[in-house]
C-alpha cells in the first residue's frame, strides 16, 4: 500500500521541494520591514557597524529596497504556491485515476458494499483533500519551522542571552498545547458522529418532507430532527468550554514574547550588556518569533481530519480484484450455454445465494427462470452477465469455458436487457452503438427499428445526434428500455439475458417494449428472469429456483402438475390478476344493484 502513496508522491518530489524552498525564502523576506527598523536604529544609535552614525538621510532609499524585497517575496510566494498547487492537483488526479483503474478491475461484489455516493466521495472529495495537504500545509509548515529557526539563529548570533529570553514562554505554550491536545482524538470522533447524526436527520427530513407535509407535522413536532440539530450546537459549546482555556492560552502565549523580551532587553541595555540597537532588534524580531509555530497545530488538525479520508481512499485502491482470467479462444459458432454446479456467495464467508445450479441453454432456445422473491433469480443473472464470480462450478459455451475465451469474444457472447437501463451522457447514437462504437449509421437505424424506437428517435430534435444529458433524465422508463433493446440488437450477441422485471410501464409503451423484445429474441438463445409467470408460459423450458437451488424444470403444464412451488406462484398470480379496485368481494352487477 505504501507503494501507491510513494508512487503518487514521487513524481511530485521536485515540485514539492521547490515549493518548500521558495516558501522559506519568501517567509524570510517577510522580515524585511523589521530589518529596516533595525537598520534605522543602527543608523541613529550605533557606534560601530556599517550603518554607524549614518543618520536617517538614506531612509527613503532603504525603504525602496524593502519594497523591492517585498515584491520579490510575493513572486517567490507565488512561485511556491504554483508549484505546491500543481503538485497537489496532480496528486489528486493520479489518486483518482488509480482509484478509477482499481474500480474498473474490482470484483463486482465490492459495489454491493459501496454506494456510488461513497465512491464519488472517495474519488472526488477525499482525493482533493489529501492533495490539499501539500497544497497549503506543506509550504506553510516549512516556513512555520524554518523562519523561527533562522530568526533564532540571527538573534542567538547577536546575543544568546536575549535569544534565550525570547524563547522563555515557549515551554509553557508547549505544555498547554499538549494538555489541550490530549484526548482530542476521541473527542474529534464524537464530534464527527454528532455532525453526521444531524446530517442524517436532515436528509431524512428532506426525503420525507412531502409526506410530513401531508400529515401536517411541522419541524417543532419532530423531536429527532430537533434533538439532532440542537445536539450539534450543544456539543460544539461543550467542546469550546472544555478546550478554550488551553487553546487561547497557547495562542496568546506564542504571540506574547514581548512580556519577557522588552523588560529583559531594557535591563541588559541599562546594565550596558547590549547596545540600544540590539534591544530594538529583539523587540522587532523576537516579539513575533514563535507565532508561526501555531501553524503546526493546524497541520495536526488537518492530518487528523484526513485520516478517515485516507482510509476511504485506501479502501478503493485495495478493492479486491475480479478474477481476471481470460484466454485466447475464439467464440464457438452456435454453442450451448452450460452452467454446471454453480454456487455463488455475496460475501466470502456469507451464505450461498446460488447453490449448485445446473442450467443449459441450447441455440435458439428460450428458457425462463422463475421463483419466489429471494430465490436467487437476479443473482443468477448477475453471475451470467455481470461478471460476478462463481465460488464453485463452471460456465461454458459450446464446450469452451468462458474464462478461456478471448476478452472480445466474451463480450460478444452475451447481451443483457434489464429493468434498469444505464445510459451514458452522450448522443443517442453513442448509446445505441455502445458495444460497437464504429457501427455505421444504417445499422444503428436498423437496430432502433427492430427495438421499436425508430419513431422515438426520429421525433428527437437532432435524431441520432441528440444529446441525452446526464442519466438521460428526459426519457421515460419505456423509452429507455427500447434504447437498451436497440443497443442489444446492434451488439448482436448469440445469447440474450432478459431480466423481465418490467415495472408497470404505461400500456402502449409496454407493448412497444414487448414487440422490440420479440424481434430481438429471434434467432438467439434467450434466458429470461421472469417475474410474471404468464409471460413465460410459452417458454421452451421453465426452471424453478427456490433458496438458490433448482427445484424443478420443465414446461408450464408439467410444472403445474408436479411442482408445488410453481403451483403456489401460479395461483397467487391468478388471484392478484383478477383483483380490481373498488370491488373487493362483490361482483360489479351486484354492486350496481345495491346502489
Amino acid at each position, binding site marked *: 500500500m505504501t507503494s501507491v502513496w510513494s508512487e503518487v508522491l514521487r513524481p511530485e518530489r521536485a515540485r514539492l521541494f521547490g515549493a518548500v524552498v521558495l516558501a522559506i525564502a519568501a517567509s524570510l523576506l517577510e522580515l524585511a520591514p523589521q530589518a*529596516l*527598523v533595525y537598520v534605522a536604529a543602527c543608523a541613529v544609535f550605533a557606534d560601530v557597524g556599517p550603518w554607524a552614525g549614518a543618520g*536617517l*538621510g538614506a*531612509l*527613503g532609499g*532603504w525603504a*525602496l529596497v524593502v519594497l523591492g524585497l517585498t515584491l520579490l517575496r*510575493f513572486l517567490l510566494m507565488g512561485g511556491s504556491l*504554483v508549484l505546491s*498547487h500543481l503538485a497537489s492537483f496532480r496528486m489528486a488526479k493520479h489518486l*483518482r485515476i488509480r482509484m478509477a483503474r482499481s474500480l474498473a478491475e474490482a470484483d*463486482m461484489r465490492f*459495489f454491493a458494499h459501496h454506494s456510488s455516493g461513497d*465512491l*464519488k466521495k472517495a*474519488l472526488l472529495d477525499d482525493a482533493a483533500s489529501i492533495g490539499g495537504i501539500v497544497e497549503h500545509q506543506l509550504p506553510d509548515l516549512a516556513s512555520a519551522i524554518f523562519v523561527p529557526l533562522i530568526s533564532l539563529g540571527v538573534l542567538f548570533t547577536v546575543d544568546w542571552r536575549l535569544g534565550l529570553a525570547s524563547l522563555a514562554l515557549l515551554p509553557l505554550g508547549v505544555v498547554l498545547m499538549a494538555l489541550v491536545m490530549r484526548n482530542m482524538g476521541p473527542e474529534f470522533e464524537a464530534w464527527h458522529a454528532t455532525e453526521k447524526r444531524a446530517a*442524517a436527520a*436532515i436528509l431524512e427530513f428532506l*426525503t420525507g*418532507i*412531502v409526506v410530513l407535509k401531508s*400529515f401536517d407535522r411541522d*419541524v417543532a413536532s419532530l423531536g429527532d*430532527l430537533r434533538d439532532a440539530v*440542537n445536539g*450539534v*450546537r450543544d456539543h460544539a*459549546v461543550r467542546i*469550546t468550554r472544555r478546550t*478554550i482555556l488551553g487553546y487561547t492560552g497557547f*495562542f*496568546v502565549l506564542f504571540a506574547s514574547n*514581548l*512580556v519577557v523580551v*522588552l523588560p529583559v532587553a*531594557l535591563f541588559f541595555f*541599562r546594565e550596558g550588556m547590549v547596545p*540600544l540597537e540590539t534591544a530594538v532588534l529583539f*523587540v522587532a524580531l523576537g516579539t513575533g518569533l514563535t507565532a508561526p509555530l501555531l501553524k503546526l497545530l493546524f497541520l495536526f488538525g488537518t492530518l487528523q481530519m484526513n485520516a478517515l479520508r485516507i482510509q476511504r481512499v485506501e479502501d478503493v485502491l485495495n478493492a479486491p480484484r475480479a478474477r481476471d482470467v481470460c484466454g485466447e479462444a475464439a467464440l464457438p459458432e452456435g454453442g450451448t450455454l452450460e452452467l454446471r454446479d454453480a454456487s455463488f456467495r455475496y460475501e466470502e464467508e456469507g451464505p450461498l445465494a446460488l447453490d449448485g445450479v445446473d442450467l443449459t441453454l441450447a441455440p435458439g432456445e428460450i428458457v425462463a427462470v422463475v421463483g*419466489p422473491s429471494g430465490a436467487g433469480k437476479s443473482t443468477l443473472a448477475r453471475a451470467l452477465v*455481470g461478471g460476478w464470480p462463481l465460488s464453485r462450478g463452471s460456465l461454458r459455451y459450446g464446450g469452451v469455458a468462458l474464462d478461456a475465451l478471448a476478452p472480445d469474444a466474451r463480450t460478444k457472447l*452475451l447481451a443483457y436487457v434489464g429493468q434498469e437501463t444505464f445510459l*451514458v451522457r452522450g448522443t443517442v447514437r453513442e448509446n445505441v452503438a*455502445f458495444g460497437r462504437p464504429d457501427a455505421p449509421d444504417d445499422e444503428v437505424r436498423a437496430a432502433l427499428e427492430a427495438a421499436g424506437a425508430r419513431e422515438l428517435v426520429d421525433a428527437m430534435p437532432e435524431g441520432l445526434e441528440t444529446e441525452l*444529458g*446526464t442519466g438521460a433524465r428526459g426519457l421515460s422508463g419505456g423509452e429507455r428500455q427500447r434504447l437498451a433493446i436497440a443497443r442489444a440488437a446492434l451488439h448482436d450477441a448469440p445469447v440474450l439475458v432478459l431480466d423481465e422485471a418490467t*415495472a408497470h*410501464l404505461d*400500456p*402502449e409503451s409496454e*407493448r412497444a417494449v*414487448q414487440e422490440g423484445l420479440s424481434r430481438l429474441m429471434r434467432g438467439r438463445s434467450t434466458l429470461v428472469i421472469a*417475474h410474471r409467470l404468464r409471460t413465460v*408460459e410459452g417458454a421452451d423450458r421453465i426452471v424453478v429456483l427456490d433458496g438458490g437451488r433448482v427445484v424443478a424444470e420443465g414446461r408450464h403444464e408439467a410444472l403445474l402438475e408436479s411442482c408445488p412451488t410453481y403451483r*403456489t406462484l401460479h395461483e397467487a398470480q391468478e388471484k392478484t390478476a383478477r383483483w*380490481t*379496485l*373498488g370491488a*373487493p368481494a362483490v361482483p360489479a352487477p351486484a354492486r350496481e344493484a345495491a346502489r
Partner: protein
Amino acid sequence: MIDFGLDLAGDAERNGPDGPTYSLRGASLVAAAGALVEAMPVWIVVYALGEAFVGRSSALRLDLLTFGLVVLLAATYALKVAGAIGTFGATYALACRLRLRLAEHLRRLPMGFWTARHRGQIGNVLTTQFDQYTEIFTHVWSMVVVNVVYPLALGAGLFALDPWVALATLLPVLPAMFAISWTLRVLNAASDELAAEVGETTDRIIEYVEGIATFRAFGRAGDANDVLRDRLDRLEATSMKTELVAAPAIMTYSMVVYGGFVLGAFAAAWRVESGGLAAPAAVLALLVAALFVRAQASLVLYLAESRFAARTLARVRELFGEPEQASGTLTPPIEAPVLEVRDVSFAHAADESEEPAPTLRRIGARFAPGTVTALVGPSGSGKSTFAHLLLRLWDVDAGVIRLGGFDVRDLSLAHLHRHVAMVFQEVVLFETSVLDNLRLARPEASREEVEAAARRARIHDVIAALPEGYDTVLGPGGAGLSGGERQRLSIARALLRDAPILVLDEATASLDPASEAAVQAAVGELMAGRTVVVIAHRLWTIKHADAILVFDQGRIVERGTHEALVQAGGTYARLWEAQQTARGWSLSA
C-alpha cells in the same frame, strides 16, 4: 462586501431552553476590546524605548513595566476566552436556529418545489455547507474583528507619534480596500468556473461508478476510463487556473499595504530632514508602522476564507426567499366531502433537468362521496399532476378546486389534509420505531389504534415478528423491509389518518405475487367507505371503478365507465387493447 450574516443573528442566542444565551454582537465587542488591549503593549514599547532613546532608561521602572505587560497579557487572554466562547456559542446557536427555521420554511413551500435535484442541493446546503459555515465563521470572524481593530489601534497611536508618517502609512488603506473587493470578485468568478467543472466531474465520476458493470459487459471499461481521465485533466487545468487568476489581485493588495510602510519611511526621512521629527522618534514610528502593515496584510486572507461561509449564506437567503404556500384560515365542518374541480388550468416551470411537467388545460371533474374514480393516460399526460392539485401540492393557475363547497385555498392546509389524504407510490419511512413511523399520520393515536390499523393493513404479523415488535427501530429509509411490506405500512398510516377522501398512486414496481396479494387486500380495506381517486397504471384493476377519466396531453379526453369507454373506441379503448395484448404477451420462439 462580504456577507457575514450578522443581520440573521438575533440579539441573543439562547442555548437550549435553560441554557446560557450568547450574543454575536456582544462577543464581537469583547473580541474588539481584546484586540485593543492586545495593541496596548506596543504603547508600552513605544514609551519605554522612547525613554531609552533619549537616555532616560535608568529612570524606567522595569518592575512596573513588566507588571503592566503581564496584566495586559492576562486581560488579553481573558477577553479572548470570553470572546471565543461568545462567538462559538452564538454562531452554533445561530446555525442551529437557522437550520431549523429553514427546515420549517422548506416544509411550507409548495410541495411541487421538491424535485429530486432540489433535494440533493438543499441537503448539501443544510448539512455540509452549514458545517463549513460554522467552522469557518467561528475561526475567521474573531480574526476579522482583530485584524480590523488591532491595526486601527496601532494607526491611531502612529498619529500620536507623527501625523505625517501616520498619514503616509495609512494612505494606501483605502485603495487596499478596493484591492480586497477586486480580489474577492476575481476569486468568486474563478470559483464559479471551478464549481461548474467540479459539477461536470462529479457527474462523470458517478456515471463511471454506476455504469461499471455495463462498461465491462460491452468491453468499454478502457474507453470510459479515458473519458474520465480527460475530464480529470480538465479539472486539474481549471483548478490551476483558478489559483493563478486570483494571484495578481492578492499580490496587489499586499503590495499596496506594504507600499504604506515604504511611504511612511519616506515621510519619516522627510520629517527628520526638515527637523519636524527627532531621529529616535522616527525609529519608533517605523517600528509601529512595521507592526501595522503586518496586521493589515493578514486581513485579506481571512476575508478570502470567509467567502466560503458567505456562499452558504447566499444559498440560505435564496431559499428563504422562496415564497411559502399560503395556507387559508377556514376550518369549517365539511358535511358532505364532495371534491369539485372547475375549469382548472395549471402549468409549472419545470426544472430544466427534470422531465417537463405537463400543462393542464381547463379541467373539470366531480368526486362524489363513496365513489371510486380512476385517472388513466400515457406517461406525461397530466394525471399525476392533476392528482397533486387535489392535495394542494401545487396551486391552480386558473379555475378552482372546492371541498364541500369551500375553495381549498381558503381552508387551512391542516384542515384540507384531514379530509384529503394521499398514499404515495414512494413510501417514506424514518429511522425511528415502527410505532412512531405509523403515528406520523396521527400523533395522538393510542397503541391499540395503531395495532388495529396495522392488522387491517395486513402488516401486523410482520411487525410482531420484528425483534422488538412495534418498538423496533427501522434502518435508514426503512432498510430491511420488502417493497410490499413498505407499501402496507404506508396503507396502515392512511388507515390511521382516516381521511374521507383518498388519493391513491398505484405503485408501478412489480411485487412478487404473494406480497402483491397482501397489498391488494390492504388497499381493499383502506378503500372501504371512502371517496377514492386512483392514479392507475394497470387498467384491469379499475374495470369496476365508478368513473374513469382519461388524460391525454393535459386534457381529459374521455370519461365514463370501463364498458362505455371500451365501446366508444377512443383513447381508452386503444390503451386497453394495448394492455390486453401486453398482458397476453408471452415469450415464444
